């Protein structure tokens, strides 16, 4: 393991730097299956890891470029002392916090299991591992934040899991898959989870969880594309579906303090979707007695979007579009480190209209997650 030298602080003051960039999507991995399993209840180990191999690369039915070699990771993010990219907290700190200039990063592990109870136990195990390794042992600098992973299949147990972590100094949000086996986010099925999350001040974030088990392969309404290219270009429509359900099924009315974060699903679609929802709501108010407000208002108040992957279109037009969209309070910068489609902070900041930059790079995430204004500097960082 690489180690970043802990800076011994005498006075404390001179070790602090201003928070300028918050990264709202980083993927940590356990360094080995054994390490992860050590956090699981003994009686579940054989059930969840029958092959004894929790961190082996999963099949990519839609595979990313050269994935046999890259495994969807940045080739330059492999830790020099061994292990898979994202498994070494100190090397991640070096590349992301020191080299890329990120001040605080939100960690989002990815895991799934086929059966509900097993998935709940697996997610809880990840929470214990994350809290112990990334949020404690390797967090002397306090710059990692974590996600409370919960199973979409077990909302009551998910609520109890949220309670278990309430008050933890570094857990910042709840994390759930958007691949919810045909149950859209606005469905009352999720109410126990939303109630607990909102009450404890945790936003509920969602992120693609992968292509196994079987039922997590997203089946698109008009059938599936053959390549990752058009599969992932269409992926935002899953978030659109969930957002429309949250609005039209009244989830935001039932949970006024709920905040939802859509991760890695784009955000420029929010403008046409907001106006589409507004027009239909205006025309069909009678069908929606439980939806008291204009849909776009719910989006502005309740929803956040992370920015990666940024679209590669002309800068001037892109900034103009973002100005028109006027969601400068709802976007949060992200890198997706250590995945291959990583956005660098220096590239990203230039993509946004000047007057939205500070909010997108820092302010919105700081407000949402209650982050501090300064953090401890790493050695060599100023």
């Amino acid at each position, binding site marked *: 393991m690489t180690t970043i030298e802990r800076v011994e602080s005498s006075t404390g003051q001179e070790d602090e730097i201003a928070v300028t960039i918050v990264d709202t999507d980083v993927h940590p991995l356990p360094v080995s299956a054994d390490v992860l399993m050590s956090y699981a209840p003994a009686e579940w180990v054989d059930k969840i890891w029958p092959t004894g191999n929790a961190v082996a690369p999963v099949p990519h039915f839609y595979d990313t470029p050269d994935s046999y070699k890259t495994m969807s990771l940045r080739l330059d993010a492999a830790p020099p002392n061994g292990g898979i990219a994202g498994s070494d907290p100190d090397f991640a700190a070096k590349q992301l916090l020191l080299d890329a200039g990120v001040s605080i990063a939100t960690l989002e592990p990815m895991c799934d299991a086929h059966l509900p109870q097993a998935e709940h136990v697996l997610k809880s195990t990840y929470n214990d591992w994350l809290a112990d390794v990334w949020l404690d042992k390797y967090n002397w600098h306090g710059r990692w934040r974590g996600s409370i992973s919960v199973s979409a299949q077990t909302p009551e147990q998910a609520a109890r899991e949220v309670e278990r972590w309430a008050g933890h100094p570094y857990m910042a949000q709840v994390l759930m898959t958007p691949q919810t086996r045909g149950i*859209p986010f606005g469905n009352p099925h999720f109410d126990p989870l939303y109630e607990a999350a909102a009450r404890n001040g945790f936003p509920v974030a969602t992120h693609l969880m992968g292509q196994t088990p079987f039922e997590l392969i997203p089946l698109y309404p*008009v059938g599936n594309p053959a390549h990752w290219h058009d599969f992932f270009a269409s992926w935002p429509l899953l978030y659109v579906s969930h957002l*429309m359900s949250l609005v039209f099924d009244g989830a935001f009315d039932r949970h006024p303090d709920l905040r939802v974060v859509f991760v890695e699903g784009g955000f420029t679609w929010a403008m046409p979707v907001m106006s589409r929802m507004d027009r*239909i709501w205006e025309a069909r108010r009678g069908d929606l007695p439980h939806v008291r407000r204009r849909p776009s208002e719910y989006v502005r108040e309740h929803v956040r979007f992370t920015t990666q992957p940024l679209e590669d279109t002309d800068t001037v037009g892109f900034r103009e579009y973002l100005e028109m969209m006027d969601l400068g309070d709802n976007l949060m910068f992200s890198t997706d480190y250590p995945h291959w489609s990583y956005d660098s902070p220096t590239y990203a900041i230039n993509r946004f209209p000047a007057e939205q930059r500070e909010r997108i790079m820092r302010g919105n995430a700081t407000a949402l997650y209650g982050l501090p204004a300064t953090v401890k500097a790493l050695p060599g960082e100023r």
Partner: protein
Amino acid sequence: MTPIIDANVQPHFRYNAEIRRYLPDAHKLRSIPDVEQQWYQAPGGDYRQDLYGENYPGSDPETVSRHLFSQGVDYAILNPLTRGNIADYLLNSRICAAVNDWLLDRWLEPDSTNRFRGTMRVNPEDPKGAVAEIERLATHPKLVQVGVPMQSREPYGKPMFEPIWEAAAAHGLPVAVHINGGNGVDHPPTFAGHAHTYPGYAAFMPLNYFVHLATLIVEGVFGRHPRLKFVFADGGYDILTPLMWRLDTFWLSMRDQTPWVDRYPSEYLPGHVRFCSSAFDGPVDAGKMQRWMDFTGKSDLLMYGSSYPHWSTSTPGVMAEGLDGPQRDKVLWRNASELYGLAVRESAL
């Protein structure tokens, strides 16, 4: 007065049994979904309240003619619904042929105004039958496009459908994709499953066009058929900009898996893609309309479509609100005039 071409009108049968007159004897006793059947029906009826009367809304050519042509519409493209992707694909093809024969018999051939044009419906689940139907009707001067449903268990870029698009393109016929009626064996309509509200369904359903479009590009269908044009007739074109940006961006990464895509995906749009407008598209703030339409060159792609007699029937004035002069012309008639080869009155030019 600006010419107006209404590129999306749904004519209906007068009553359920009417379709059986056009079905071959072998199928006359089969169960067929009713005229008004939809998996997700709008509460209070799918059609304009004022049009429900003795017969089904949109079922009387004279009434439709009065409602459209007397209001300044020069041409109306009729795109009839069929009865869904029912399991028996051969019966479905016979239903399509019956609808086509009815359209000719009741709407197009007796039309003395010469302002109605029509869509020949085919069943993509029966590619041989679809090609045969195109060959049967392609030379009819009043049938200006081929029609297929939005609903499908496979996206239209997949290889099993290509002979259909090839036949359409060979005859210079655009292919119009429109949400179908009836009760098909379909996947849930949203990416997250079934909607629990009608607005939750209606807001999302048209956006599924993007997966058809993306596969037509990425599988190389547009590349192999330079003359092929698709019309996405239920609107949803606003989301074209963000999603095409995404498709363009990932092309640079993914090109080696589909190397026949030899240009940015968005470069296929002008030559291959058109949209009909809907009541749910466009910015709520009309002041943004001009700039909105410039992104992704949408004003070259869009054609006015009223969706008459749907409850959301729109009018040209409302649809064109906020557009500048050239954009108005393109959207209200010029794009459709070029696509369908429709000459507009000289006095209006």
